[in-house]
């Protein structure tokens, strides 16, 4: 990725963007400068709310509904996009500046075949005929190492896997050979093994066509692989910008340093429970099916009091299904779930209130798991009333105590609605609601996946502290191995509904591994900018995709 011999392609000066809240407009991007040369890849990183995507879209002269570009200049190849008429902007979009969205699954139109969506751009922009464009699409599919490049384009989006869709989308934005591509978190929704393949494809294609790119992500390790330079953003302001290596080795600003430090949180692993201890939860040989389709095969593991068992695997591996079996939402077709040495009824409808109280759940999307029409106080009161029968002053006191436990000031938060809280705060409410039942066991289903790294770290520390204080047993479902490293005592690796490997964390993270565990571990991006290159060499270019798509 050379850049010295090329001129400036994108020159953003003092960009200001406003967002509407109610009737008022508030500034959300406060005068950001950005210079991108032809063929150069710049990484934009920051937490949610940093304005990364908003700036990325502004580079196309586009503002989402409820946003407007209120000041500054966006010069693309000499044109100021803030003053360009809509029709000219439209001619530019897709043909010279293209956009890759976070979720290809949601960004492909479900009603049209991939190739029809691919050829739409070149045909509309008058760049090539349908036949030429189709031929080019197939060639691009081949270059992006999609399986069956000759026929995959003739499928509908739902007939293609997530990683393949993301590559098909990269192919689609290449259809007009744009000068600039905005990649907006293109691998965030993917599993680690799939992510590698997509990262490698994107890097290859950007290199081959010498395309400039803005690469937006919150994942530092990913941006380290992709970008020539990195710009760090915080709440609509630039923090600092530097060459990738320089930025990684010696970040100057405190905020950047704090971002870099997140991955270091790791609590000491607890010793294994004594051999004669009765596990809080014991899953014994459960198999389960959705309708006719079997999804879990003979899964067993134990979770002891005060311990965290991390259940790891890619999407579709059966992690969440195992949790549904434990909670009784999905009665297993065979096998049983024991709680404190007693067999639990398979269906939650047959469990008594005491049995239900003991196992609680915290969900991935705190946004949708909290009733938006209820105040925080009501949300937390409900399980206290239901399970413990507290009323009046005792109830209020207990809720205040719970809010204290999750480090939110009761007087400030009791009367608020979920929509008035940040993502991390909402997740804390989710935790308080689970604690309200005074359970022994909590299932944490990807509780940090939707959060920024700094916020996620706060949640992990909170969960850890609560475990210390209350001797809770956690089942921690995650696909993120960094999270496993920081919080787990034991690890269960699942794949395609089966337990592949299980054991204490220190053993699991040390070789020799089961080949699948090895693949998972080696697929987690590292901060080293050469990591991807080295890994691809090690694995050989031919078989990187196979693990992801089987």
């Amino acid at each position, binding site marked *: 990725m050379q850049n010295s011999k090329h001129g400036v392609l994108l020159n953003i000066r003092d960009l200001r963007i406003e967002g509407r809240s109610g009737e008022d407009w508030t500034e959300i991007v406060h005068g950001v400068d950005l210079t991108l040369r032809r063929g150069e890849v710049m990484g934009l990183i920051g937490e949610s709310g940093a304005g990364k995507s908003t700036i990325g879209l502004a580079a*196309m002269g586009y503002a989402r509904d409820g946003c407007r570009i209120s000041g500054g200049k966006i010069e693309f190849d000499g044109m100021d996009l803030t003053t360009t008429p809509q029709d000219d902007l439209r001619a530019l979009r897709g043909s010279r500046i293209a956009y890759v*969205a*976070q979720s290809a699954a*949601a960004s492909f139109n479900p009603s049209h075949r991939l190739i029809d969506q691919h050829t739409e*751009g070149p045909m509309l922009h008058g760049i090539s005929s349908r036949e030429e464009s189709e031929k080019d699409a197939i060639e691009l599919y081949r270059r992006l190492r999609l399986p069956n490049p000759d026929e995959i384009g003739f499928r509908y989006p739902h*007939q293609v896997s997530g990683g393949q869709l993301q590559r098909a989308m990269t192919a689609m934005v290449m259809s007009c050979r744009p000068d600039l591509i905005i990649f907006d978190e293109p691998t965030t929704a993917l599993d680690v093994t799939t992510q590698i393949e997509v990262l490698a494809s994107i890097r290859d294609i950007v290199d081959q066509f010498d395309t400039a790119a803005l690469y937006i992500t919150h994942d530092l390790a990913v941006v380290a692989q992709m970008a020539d330079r990195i710009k760090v953003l915080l709440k609509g302001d630039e923090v600092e910008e530097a060459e990738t290596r320089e930025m990684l080795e010696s970040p100057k600003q405190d905020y950047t340093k704090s971002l870099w430090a997140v991955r270091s949180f790791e609590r000491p692993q607890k010793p294994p429970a004594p051999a004669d201890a009765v596990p809080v939860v014991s899953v014994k040989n459960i198999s389960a099916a959705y309708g006719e389709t079997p999804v879990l095969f003979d899964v067993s593991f134990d979770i002891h009091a005060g311990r965290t068992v991390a259940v790891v695997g890619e999407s579709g591996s059966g992690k969440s299904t195992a949790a549904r079996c434990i909670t009784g939402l999905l009665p297993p077709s065979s096998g049983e779930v024991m709680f404190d040495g007693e067999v639990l009824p398979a269906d939650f409808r047959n469990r008594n209130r005491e049995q239900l109280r003991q196992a609680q759940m915290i969900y991935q999307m705190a946004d949708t798991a909290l009733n938006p029409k209820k105040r925080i106080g009501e949300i937390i009161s409900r399980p206290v009333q239901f399970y413990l029968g507290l009323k009046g002053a005792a109830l209020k006191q207990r809720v205040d105590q719970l809010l204290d436990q999750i480090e939110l000031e009761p007087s400030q938060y009791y009367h608020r609605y979920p929509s008035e809280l940040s993502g991390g705060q909402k997740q804390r409410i989710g935790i308080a609601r689970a604690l309200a039942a005074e359970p022994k066991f909590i299932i944490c289903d990807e509780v940090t996946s939707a959060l920024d790294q700094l916020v996620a770290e706060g949640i992990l520390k909170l969960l850890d502290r609560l475990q210390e204080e209350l001797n809770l047993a956690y089942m921690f479902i995650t696909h993120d191995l960094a999270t496993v490293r920081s919080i787990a005592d034991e690890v269960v690796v699942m794949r395609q509904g089966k337990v592949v490997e299980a054991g204490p964390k220190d053993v699991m993270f040390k070789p020799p591994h089961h080949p699948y565990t090895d693949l998972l571990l080696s697929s987690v991006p590292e901060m080293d900018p050469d990591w991807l290159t080295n890994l691809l060499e090690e694995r050989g270019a031919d078989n990187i995709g196979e693990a992801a798509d089987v």
Partner: protein
Amino acid sequence: MNGLAMLMAKRIGLGLITLFAVSVIIFAALELMPGDLAEQVLGQSATPETVAQFRKELGLDKAPHIRYFDWLGGALQGDFGVSLANKRSVADQLAPRFANTLFLAALAAAISVPLALTLGVLAALYRNSIFDRVANVSTLTSISSPEFFLGYVLILFLAVKNPIFPSISNISPNADFMEQLYRTMLPAITLTLVVTAHMMRMTRAAIINLLASPYIEMARLKGVPRWRVIVRHALVNALAPIINVVALNLAYLITGVVLVEVVFVYPGVGQLLVDSVSKRDLPVVQACCLIFAATYVLLNLLADVGSILSNPRLRHPR
């Protein structure tokens, strides 16, 4: 394709069961009416012997379930019995009327469906503009006014003050197509005014609902023009709810025309139904109800099939 065929077979099966249930209800409802046909026809002065004799003639002395299956069996073969009023076969009486009703409904549909879809797409395209508001307000006004009132207003303006169309839609069986079209125009316009608002607003809402989808943003960022975003990227995915509303309104065009037919003295099933009810001509009423029910079931069935077919996941399984 197997899953799709199964799904369709299930829907069609359910439709048949519904129709069967409806026929039972219609039969039972008329059975519950006080007195029977023989008493009504012969009047109060008839002797019990003549009534009994007449019952036997009509087959009314048999058990209800036997009469029901006789009636159903006949209905399935197109024989709805004999009219009490004029002793003519119900089917013969009904067939030309039903054809007229279908013609009116088809004409109204041919005007209203394209009009509603176009207005809906345009309203979504220029949402919150003057056009959107005018379209909304005028269609809402027309749906809020009773249809007989709309009919008379149309007669006033299009037949009396500006004699463009005839105010009475009497159709002779040997009128040619253009003549029939001309005479049916006013009731068709009245019906159009009644059904357009619903379909238009659903089209607009279903499209706008999708405009926040990532794939719509993607289409915009590909440089796709606005109208094409709406028609090619939003409308195709909004078809399921639109199809359902269109089907409901089409059913209304056939079954809800009673008032309009009366206003315009249009010789359709609605008029026949009203006449027969006032004459207590039960076999005709039964037949009309069954036809209306069958229309509803059939159109809803078509809507279901249409929505299923509009879903690419069902059309193209993995």
